[in-house]
């Protein structure tokens, strides 16, 4: 169906274009259609801004403590795989510090042969690398555990974004300093007022963790950790420590506040899972989604899929409440631990519909239903809800949380 639709559309557009050209040639209108002429546009400027007609913003729920709060990415309007730095989600614990990069230092010490203090300039002298990867707070979609679901993709799932990050592999830094026998973990600490800190297994640090200063072609934004942060591809957002100032190599975890009282997942039997760092495979239809209104006829269904375990290999979409599934096209490049954009052409016939997507990653893991998650974890675990998201299309084209 989709192939026929696309071919038919292309043919019709070709006919329309030819017709338009013929009509234009027949008329003897002046080359400009405006007798009063046209005003000059704005001059060149030193730093760009978006069109005044574009109004997308991060969403911020009401709070008395905006310094320890979050803002959410408008996923329902996202295009492509990258999130603009200005719309990247935020989660801070003591506000955004203002840090002069000339004064900033990174101390790496503990179980290393050569403890070292780096300036920003010194870190940037090291061989660097860039990588596109997603970042997701493990508390994303947590409203889905409860009975008060959010309305839009942004409100429910907006604690996820995807950027290109540039910096130095942490493995290079650690190898340069010489990791000692017996080291198993490290502690990463920020320079924000609360000195946010998390423990990270050394194996992950030596695998693909980065110490970055660049985001999407320029310096990190202050709210993303300027001038220096950790990027731990595929692991929960909180361990991607911002405003990074200290790394201590250790033989065990420090059991910090944010890896004991928070970011642990309470199970129905009263035990809590700890160091639940991996972000499981998740997908989400971003258009049409909650708050949108669609018209009968052609509608391209599109969305995002990602997994902390590598690449997305398949996204299936259902428009009939899960009775039948079709494979969506995956937009290249499909990168490991990055947002993958998927698309499926659809013709809405004006009747009620239930839209949902289900992704599979390269380990064979298939995104579960919410019911499957709840059956194992109950409803009090707060974090790591990667269940299938269902959007309901009403007869008038309005889209809501199913």
């Amino acid at each position, binding site marked *: 169906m989709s192939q026929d639709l696309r071919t038919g559309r292309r043919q019709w557009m070709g006919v329309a274009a030819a017709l338009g050209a013929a009509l234009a040639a027949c008329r003897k209108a002046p080359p400009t259609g405006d007798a009063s002429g046209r005003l000059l546009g704005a001059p060149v400027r030193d730093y760009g801004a978006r069109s005044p007609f574009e109004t997308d913003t991060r969403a911020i729920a009401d709070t008395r403590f905006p310094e320890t709060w979050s803002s959410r990415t408008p996923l329902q309007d996202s295009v492509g795989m990258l999130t603009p730095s200005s719309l990247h989600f935020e989660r801070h614990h003591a506000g955004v510090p203002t840090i002069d990069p000339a004064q900033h230092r990174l101390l790496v*010490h503990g179980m290393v042969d050569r403890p070292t203090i*780096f300036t920003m300039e010194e*870190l940037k002298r090291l061989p660097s690398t860039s990588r596109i990867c997603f970042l997701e707070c493990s508390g994303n979609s947590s409203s889905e555990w409860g009975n008060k679901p959010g309305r839009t993709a942004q409100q429910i799932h907006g604690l996820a974004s995807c950027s290109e990050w540039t910096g130095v592999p942490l493995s290079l830094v650690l190898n340069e300093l010489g990791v000692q026998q017996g080291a198993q973990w490290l502690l990463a600490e920020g320079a924000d007022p609360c000195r946010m800190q998390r423990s990270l297994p050394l194996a992950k640090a030596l695998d693909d963790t980065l110490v970055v200063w660049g985001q999407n072609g320029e310096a990190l934004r202050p709210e993303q950790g300027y001038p220096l942060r950790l990027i731990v591809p595929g692991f929960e957002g909180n361990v991607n420590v911002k405003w990074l100032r200290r790394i201590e190599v250790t033989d065990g975890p420090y059991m910090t506040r944010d890896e004991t009282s928070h970011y642990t997942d309470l199970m129905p039997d*009263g035990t809590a899972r700890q*160091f639940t760092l991996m972000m499981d495979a998740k997908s989400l239809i971003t258009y049409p989604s909650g708050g949108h209104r669609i018209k009968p006829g052609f509608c391209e269904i599109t969305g995002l899929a990602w997994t902390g375990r590598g690449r997305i290999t398949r996204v299936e979409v259902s428009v009939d409440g899960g009775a039948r599934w079709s494979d969506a096209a995956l937009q290249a490049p499909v990168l490991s631990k990055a947002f993958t954009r998927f698309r499926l052409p659809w013709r809405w016939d004006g009747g009620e519909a239930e839209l949902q997507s289900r992704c599979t990653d390269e380990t064979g893991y298939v995104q579960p239903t919410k019911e499957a998650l709840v059956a194992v974890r109950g409803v009090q675990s707060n974090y790591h809800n990667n269940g299938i998201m269902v959007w309901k299309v009403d007869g008038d084209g309005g889209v809501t949380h199913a």
Partner: protein
Amino acid sequence: MAMAVSLMRSLLASIGEKQPLTHVRGSDGLAQQPNRSPERKRVGLFLCLHLLTAAALLAQSPKYGVGRAPTAEEIRQWSISVRPDGKGLPAGSGTAAAGKETYANRCARCHGAHGEGRDSVPLAGGVGSLTTPTPLKTVASYWPYATTLFDYVNRAMPFDKPGTLTTNQVYDLTAYVLFLGGIIPENAVIDKDSLPKVQMPNRAGFVSDPRPDTGGKKK
């Protein structure tokens, strides 16, 4: 060691008469300036001999040589983190009795007069609630280590003015919150030796991550 061997190979090769004037690359991928002096033969042989003895040293040396060594004092000042075994706890001490007033002045506005929560997270109560439909996660009911409490108050509290409490005030407040939770008596002295020994009610409540626990992962 591999780098040293590779360097030797490059230099030995450069002794030959037919080597083209191109740059060489070490095993570390670094582009290197070719040695093209008229005396390169002699210099090359000389370097080879010395590289044999220097090889072991090279293997231990940093490749990029960037950054500087911190002083012991710098490390001490920067590292305030406290481990469950008490490593990192400073000298000083406190009691709940002494912490009552500081708590009322600096903490109660957000955490409530009795640690019940108010505008921020609750600190006391909830013991036994974790298996109920309304679990209350507090220091008393949930936190596995008392050392974490000292560490967090010391680094991050009070929320609007972190870093303004003295070490003894942090010990006092740690003791007071543990007292509010019914974990220690009011006059128990909390210091770097006694705090790691405090038994938290939910110490055994944490398990490692068993995921993937859903998703029909194919073997």
